[in-house]
């Protein structure tokens, strides 16, 4: 792993990137200065062996996260039929009895978190689990599609071991720059003769590819997921429409283009698609349905939503006005409710920072797999008190918000935001990002390792500058890479 500070600068690179979807390149810093999010010139080189190490780490981490998810759902009384019976009219999940309640997840969501987690497993979550009195015609198990996720890793090249910093399981961004912009940069600059060129099969793992001599074809994440969904919901058409929703109050264009890119890959995979605003998702009280409503007053033009991807955190969604109705709709034992991509378990079990202490508890002593983890504990635990150098992270945070780095008891960096106001934090043993000399000063890379359909799929690197850059936040840059 080597940082090359003076790489080629393509003529017209800003316009090229913009036309490929990086419309949110210019970032305004708090002092009013504008900086370029994409760094043209510097890049990273990796050896094939280093990429294989990162791939192995990613696969191993994903397998550990699935075991951790299984552990978490078992800590909720609602994971059994008996528990759900007892909890039909009364609250049974509280911080003492339920792990999900302890990390602040509303009780009304727990059953659907568990159901979506077990979907696709014919033996674990059957019709009887959803309809214990068997009042409705027997249904086969449902399926909850998931297409992507991103681990953020610490890594400093050969001789070091990748370490998990966090898992962006539900709403990872920087997808356009990782999948598209750096691929075209690599193709245009042609800096390597290595056949692998770049660790980046994100696009084709989403869209699939045709077979070639010596290599079988692959249907890609969209077709694989929608086909499985159609096996569970046989009334869906062969090419069901997929809605893609983003939050329009995010004005930089980043959310919009990330969602539009995912939508484009689903379109390329052959599905009808539509890009909508979160606020155009409507609730039909009388029909108990989720609708796409073009605008208030145009309810007569509303269209039922069978399948929707949303770039919007479940932890916001389930605290909003529509949350309860949408979760009730999701619970339909006849599987007629709207299918949400990514499912709620992605936020509740995998995508929040509580997974870090759970992983450490389960695998910290595992010599083979635990090496990819850093010791982590809930902030209020006695083990946390023993850490002198740590990163303190809110359980429900994003973009480095409210992360504090403490070295030998002294704060090195903090980043106060509104995250963490619920008082829920984890402490992770401090593992400061590697340092490289750049034109602008010392830079610190964090490696975003992408998963498509649960498989390692590529990497995007973001860099922070100086001590502030030890916490990766939305002002950090994107730097491409090659395999040499």
């Amino acid at each position, binding site marked *: 792993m080597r940082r090359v500070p003076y790489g080629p600068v393509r003529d017209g690179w800003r316009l090229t990137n913009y036309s490929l979807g990086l419309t949110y390149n210019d970032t305004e810093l708090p002092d009013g200065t504008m900086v370029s999010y994409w760094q043209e010139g510097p890049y990273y080189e990796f050896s094939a062996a280093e990429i294989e190490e990162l791939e192995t780490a990613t696969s191993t981490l994903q397998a550990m996260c699935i075991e951790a998810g299984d552990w978490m759902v078992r800590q909720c009384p609602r994971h059994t039929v008996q528990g759900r019976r007892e909890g039909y009219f009364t609250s049974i999940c509280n911080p003492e009895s339920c792990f999900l309640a302890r990390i602040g997840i509303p009780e009304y969501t727990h059953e659907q978190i568990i159901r979506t987690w077990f979907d696709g497993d014919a033996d674990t979550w059957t019709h009887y689990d959803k309809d214990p009195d068997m009042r409705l015609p027997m249904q086969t198990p449902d399926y909850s599609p998931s297409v992507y996720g991103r681990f953020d890793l610490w890594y400093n090249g050969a001789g070091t071991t990748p370490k998990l910093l966090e898992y962006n399981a539900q709403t990872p961004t920087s997808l356009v720059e990782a*999948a598209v912009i750096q691929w075209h940069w690599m193709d245009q600059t042609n800096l390597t003769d290595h056949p692998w060129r770049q660790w980046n099969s994100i696009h084709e793992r989403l869209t699939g590819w045709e077979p070639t001599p010596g290599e079988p074809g692959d249907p890609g994440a969209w077709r694989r997921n929608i086909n499985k969904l159609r096996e569970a919901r046989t009334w869906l058409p062969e090419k069901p429409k997929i809605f893609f929703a983003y939050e*329009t109050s995010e004005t930089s264009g980043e959310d*919009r283009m990330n969602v539009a890119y995912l939508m484009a890959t689903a379109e390329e995979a052959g599905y009808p*698609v539509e*890009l909508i*605003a979160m*606020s155009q998702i*409507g609730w039909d009280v009388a029909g108990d349905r989720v609708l796409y409503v073009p605008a208030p007053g145009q309810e007569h033009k509303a269209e039922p939503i069978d399948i929707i991807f949303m770039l919007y955190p479940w932890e916001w969604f389930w605290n909003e006005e529509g949350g309860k109705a949408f979760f009730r709709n999701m619970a339909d034992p006849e599987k007629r409710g709207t299918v949400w991509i990514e499912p709620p378990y992605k936020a509740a079990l995998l995508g929040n920072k509580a997974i870090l202490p759970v992983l450490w508890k389960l695998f910290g002593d595992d010599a083979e797999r635990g090496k990819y983890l850093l010791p982590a504990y809930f902030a209020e635990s006695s083990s946390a008190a023993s850490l002198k150098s740590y990163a303190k992270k809110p359980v429900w945070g994003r973009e480095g918000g409210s992360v504090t780095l403490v070295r030998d008891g002294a704060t090195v960096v903090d980043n106060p935001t509104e995250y963490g106001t619920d008082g829920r934090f984890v402490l992770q043993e401090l593992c400061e990002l590697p340092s490289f000399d750049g034109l602008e000063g010392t830079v610190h890379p964090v490696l975003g390792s992408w998963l498509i359909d649960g*498989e390692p799929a590529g990497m995007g690197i973001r860099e922070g500058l100086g001590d502030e850059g030890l916490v990766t936040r939305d002002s950090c840059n994107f730097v491409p890479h090659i395999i040499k």
Partner: protein
Amino acid sequence: MTKRITSRSVSLTSTFLLLAAGGVAACDNDDTQDEGFYCADANGVVVDEDNCDDDGNTGVGGVGLLPFFIWHSASYRPGYAVGTKLPPGGSRFAYNDRAARQRFGLPTTGRVTNGTVKTSVVGKGGGGTGKTSGKSGG
């Protein structure tokens, strides 16, 4: 799944390229307002929605054959129970005024459920849920 390290090509659909070029995005509801609908009497007191169901011929009924109205306002929130006096400032039209129903995108005949179809129930863009601004991704 087959091992593939690098995409052979990354081609983008015209839909995406049009969006990148500043094309049509999802229309948000910032410039419009949600409208809440309730069946209520002439004084704006919420009544059972059956009273505004013109299919059931019950729209004019009750004590002393009082007429009922569909009241609407952007300030109405869901969940007002029968007997609640609606907040001030609403407008009304006769429960069986088909043209008015159509104008608001309601069914032209039949029942209108109190607090019926609403938009902006999730998300920050149009609903004013009070969330701080920020990225939804990370």
